[in-house]
């Protein structure tokens, strides 16, 4: 491994093959370069870094790199490319009633995202496109007005499958004949199942659990919406064991990711922990001091990725809580940080004599 690895090299490596120390060396140089890149191209970013991180010129470790609050992308459109090079502006679906994030992409960054996602997915799906069962209704991508991160995520994932079959109708009812037909044609070999966690659990599994469908050859990839499941007190273990018991499905991969760093997702390993791919990392910070926390201590998650070149989103402090369980865990097929997400930072209301009544009227 040479020190002078580029983003291209990182994307060519198998995604979980770098030890943490190797990865940190490579990422430190890449992300420092990227900080300079954005500093030169975005005056807003330069201003933020100069004022908030005035001494961050030559970081000696990843935790010393300047970072932005992820919520900034809900408030401002930050861009490191001239307007004519903007290829598209990604918009998050956001939680109901919240302002969506907006992310500026140029062609290069969009391409990097696609390549990155592909590296990660092929590591569990293999090189070939598999028949794909979508735990969604076809309406999600049909209605372009409602097109959002959920639709975009779905389209992105559809590239990894073929002979797509939608398992749900627009009322989220099971399309049983179509699903049976899909399994009859493809259920004897590997096939891909994809959906958002909450739908997979509450719409899909709840409707098929008594039907005796055989999904044992399936590979389920799911993400997002854990909060709703946590409200129902469903744990990862229950989720996995229910699928095993009712459908024979055992290859289940949750992933953690966000629209602010598309492509750079954190896919579950066989041990049930998330792992950053070689071109990304996470840091757990103390919620009060923002200092980096050691392994085993829960804190606020910062996500780092070398992919964002068209917008300054390479180091972002999220509003999620997480914990690193082990680094380069022995016995795991993957190297790097094994972590889990504990949920959102609990909301806390500010009090005072401001406008509460009228805000509710409007």
């Amino acid at each position, binding site marked *: 491994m040479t020190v002078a690895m580029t983003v291209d090299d990182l994307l060519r490596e198998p995604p979980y093959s770098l030890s943490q120390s190797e990865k940190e060396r490579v990422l430190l140089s890449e992300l420092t370069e990227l900080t300079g890149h954005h500093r030169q191209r975005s005056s807003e970013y330069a201003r933020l870094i100069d*004022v*908030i991180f005035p001494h961050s010129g030559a970081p000696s470790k990843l935790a010393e790199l300047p970072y932005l*609050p992820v*919520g900034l992308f809900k408030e401002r459109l930050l861009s490191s490319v001239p307007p004519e090079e903007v290829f598209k502006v990604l918009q998050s679906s956001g939680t109901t009633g919240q302002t969506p994030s907006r992310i500026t992409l140029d062609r290069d960054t969009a391409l990097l995202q696609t390549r990155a996602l592909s590296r990660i997915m092929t590591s569990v799906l293999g090189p070939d496109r598999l028949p794909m069962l979508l735990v969604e209704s076809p309406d999600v991508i049909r209605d372009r007005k409602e097109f959002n991160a959920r639709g975009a995520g779905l389209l992105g994932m559809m590239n990894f499958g073929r002979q797509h079959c939608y398992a749900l109708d627009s009322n989220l009812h099971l399309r049983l004949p179509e699903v049976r037909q899909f399994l009859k044609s493809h259920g004897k070999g590997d096939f891909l199942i994809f959906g958002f966690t909450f739908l997979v659990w509450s719409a899909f599994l709840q409707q098929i659990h008594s039907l005796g469908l055989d999904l044992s050859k399936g590979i389920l990839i799911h993400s997002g919406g854990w909060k709703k499941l946590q409200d129902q007190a469903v744990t990862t273990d229950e989720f996995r064991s229910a699928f095993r018991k009712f459908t024979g499905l055992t290859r289940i991969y949750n992933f953690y990711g966000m629209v602010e760093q598309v492509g750079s997702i954190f896919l579950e390993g066989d041990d049930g922990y998330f792992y950053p791919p070689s071109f990304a990392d996470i840091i757990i910070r103390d919620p*009060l001091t923002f200092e980096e926390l050691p392994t085993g201590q829960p804190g606020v998650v910062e996500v780092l990725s070398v992919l964002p070149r068209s917008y300054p989103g390479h180091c972002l402090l999220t509003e999620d809580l997480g914990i690193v369980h082990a680094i380069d865990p022995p016995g795991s097929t993957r190297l790097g940080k094994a972590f889990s997400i504990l949920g959102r*930072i609990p909301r*806390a209301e500010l009090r*005072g*004599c401001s406008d509460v009544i009228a805000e509710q009227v409007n």
Partner: protein
Amino acid sequence: MQVEMLYPRRDTVGLEDLRSAMAGGEANRPFDDDVVEACIELSQRLLREPSARRYPELLALGFWMRKAELYRLRQQFDLMRRGDCLLVPCGTVFHLPPRNVDTIFVYSWLLSALSGNCNLIRLSRERSGPTLELLRFFCEVLENAPPSARESTWIVSYGHEKEPTEMLSSLCDMRVIWGGDHTVSTIRQVPLPPHAREMVFADRFSLSAIEAAAYLDLDPSRRGSLAKQFFDDAFWFDQMACSSPRLLIWCGDLADARAASADFFPRVNNYAMSHKVIEPAHLMHRFLASSLAVLDRSVIAYRRFPALTVLTVANLAAFSRNHPGGNLFFECQLDGLSDLASALCRRDQTLTWFGFAPEDLKNLAAVLNGRAIDRIVPIGQALQFGRFWDGNDLLQSFCRQVFIGGPDALLPV
């Protein structure tokens, strides 16, 4: 449509029932003994009962309306009396307190009730723990009071419907709107009887000023107590009370200002860390809010502590009063207090201070000449409510003066 009645009885009532229930109300004489006694009783219960003592804001209210203080108010009221006028209540006062400062409804009620008025209070449907507790004591005390105190107050609760506000407004002689600009302008659209008056409390901004050299002259323990007092002003309501400081002015030369600031804010942070639960959600909110402030304002330095963030601005030119709360402090160095006047505006309410001569503060108020600032109090007293608020004398405002001219008054001057 139906509204929830909370006092004099718990019930769900139609608007017409409410109107007839209120028809019997008669105003009292100012400082009616039974009303004063009921206030004393409420104060004692807030100071005594463990379930009230759990909430510092209820304790503060109980202390503020304690017996000695009520007698002092009565004396002040007597000083307002003139030989040629009779001070009488306005009649019926309709109070619209804010949802998120639990105690305001009692402060507002108290000054109005002492002045002799009948009171009609609208509370939000969402009521916090301290509000519920306070409401319970309030109702118990009034239910057991003599008729003049018992039968001159009504408390109702409803959502954001217009009809009850219209009906209640039509019955009042004075309307008091606590809340932000938006609430004020929404409720102002509801007409009042032609003779009725209105007192409104809009969104305000408050700031502090410290003479840097005077601060640096303090010994460490005095610096610590000033930091504690500043904490009380700012952190009690997470900087969201209208009188909480959001901007700190250091008066003096730049070196003194820097030295004083470098000493002061760590003290405030340390005190806050040991006296307040710091919510991670508030830190994230503050990190985002300060990032936005850096983008939008002339911020030249950023200091983040667990309990607070300090943003130094180069000057106060076009300084926006929009502020997210959550213990985000702007600071600015000025050569002297006289440089402050040009930076102040109508929205600025309370100036808390340390280290100035009273003359300088009076001069500032005179120079401002009504253009800004309604209150100038030492650091530590920002949240102390009083009869003088937002430029009003509440005791005076809750009364009418009946002029009684003698034969002399008819003579040409």
